[in-house]
């Protein structure tokens, strides 16, 4: 049993994020469409076709720890976001892969990090991003027979109650009541909630 | 005093039932169960004789102990054989196992 992980992983020299970015660009520069260094974090935008290669490269240069895979819906396109870090230094990599909304397919990274399995399932479940080569791509949080991908911005559901700001309902009721039947309005109103005590 | 023949007849009935079961049941475990019944019928006879013929110095009971021992050994090995059969043939129905037939 290795006492420390460094026995297995290629020892990663303490590098600045700029150096990491430079190295990445040198090796697989054509896949990176956009890059930025923010603090200790290297932020990359990567072509979807080459996302897997970039992920493996990033893993191989020391970012062996997959924090999170999340999705985001930018209306024009979807985005799969990989947050990677290392257990040996503080640098992080923030990898964004824009994918097409209608035909959203990304190659799975479960063969790089087994832990990606559930993250990708969740992303599929909530955003409908299909991960090519995923061993078990099923819905995970929602029931198997759920229709639609709820975290997309255009997701609608008749069961979804639109949210109104605090106090909005009373205001609306008041406005309506004043217009239609000013006498009954007061009885319709719920008792005003007690103001929370503040320090 | 219950006549000795009562016990002997009862033993005979149970033995015959066991014989019938051993001859007819398809399940090998059921056959083993029937054989246990037969041995029990025999034991009943032994013990009845031991009770009614005290001059035999309880030989019947001693024999019954040995019979029970043998029955236990038979059950242990017999069931192990049944398990072996099951492993090879995926069944314990003896009429489907025709290894020795040609």
């Amino acid at each position, binding site marked *: 049993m290795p006492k420390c992980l460094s026995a297995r992983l290629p020892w990663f020299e303490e590098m600045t994020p700029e150096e990491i970015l430079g190295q990445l660009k040198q090796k697989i520069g054509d896949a990176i469409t956009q890059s930025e260094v923010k603090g200790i974090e290297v932020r990359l935008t990567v072509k979807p076709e080459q996302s897997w290669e970039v992920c493996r490269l990033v893993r191989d240069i020391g970012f062996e720890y997959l924090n999170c895979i999340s999705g985001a819906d930018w209306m024009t396109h979807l985005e799969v976001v990989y947050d990677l870090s290392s257990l040996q230094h503080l640098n992080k990599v923030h990898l964004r892969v824009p994918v097409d909304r209608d035909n959203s397919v990304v190659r799975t990274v479960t063969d790089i990090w087994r832990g990606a399995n559930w993250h990708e399932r969740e992303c599929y479940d909530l955003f409908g991003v299909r991960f090519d080569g995923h061993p078990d791509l099923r819905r995970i949080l929602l029931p198997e027979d759920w229709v639609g991908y709820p975290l997309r911005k255009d997701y609608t559901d008749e069961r979804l109650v639109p949210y109104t700001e605090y106090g909005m309902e009373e205001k609306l009721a008041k406005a309506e009541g004043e217009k239609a039947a000013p006498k009954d309005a007061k009885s319709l109103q719920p008792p005003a909630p007690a103001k929370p005590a503040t320090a | 005093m219950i006549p000795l023949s009562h016990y002997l007849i009862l033993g005979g009935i149970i033995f015959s039932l066991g014989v019938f079961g051993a001859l007819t049941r398809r399940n090998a475990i059921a056959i083993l169960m029937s054989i246990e019944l037969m041995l029990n019928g025999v034991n009943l006879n032994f013990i009845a004789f031991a009770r009614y013929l005290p001059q035999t110095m309880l030989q019947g009971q001693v024999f019954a*102990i040995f019979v*029970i021992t043998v029955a236990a*050994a038979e*059950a*242990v090995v017999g*069931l192990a054989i049944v*398990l072996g059969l099951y492993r090879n043939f995926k069944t314990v129905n003896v009429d489907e196992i025709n290894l020795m037939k040609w």
Partner: protein
Amino acid sequence: MAADYAYVGFFLVVGVLFVILNIEVLSRIIRPHNPNPQKLTTYECGEEPIGIGWIRFHVRYYLYALVYIVFAVETVFLFPWAIVFRELGMFAFLEMMVFIGILLVGLAYAWKKGALEWA
């Protein structure tokens, strides 16, 4: 002797009758009885049961029972021996030691062969 065992039979019968009295008579009068298919399903942690509960089991259960029978038969011989061995002296003792010794060989064999292992 046999009269003593009349009590055993009587106790057994009364024990069973007690259960019947409680379940089928006393409780039946006062308890509700309205089953429905949902209630009558087999419990499997709130999910529909997968398959039946009567499933095949592993041979290791069988091996324990097997070794047990051999030793249970041995105790059958040990009890009469335990009562009389003092009057029969050293010979009876040695006899039983041989008996136990042979069986212990069997135990050692079972141990060695892993019949006593769970795995």
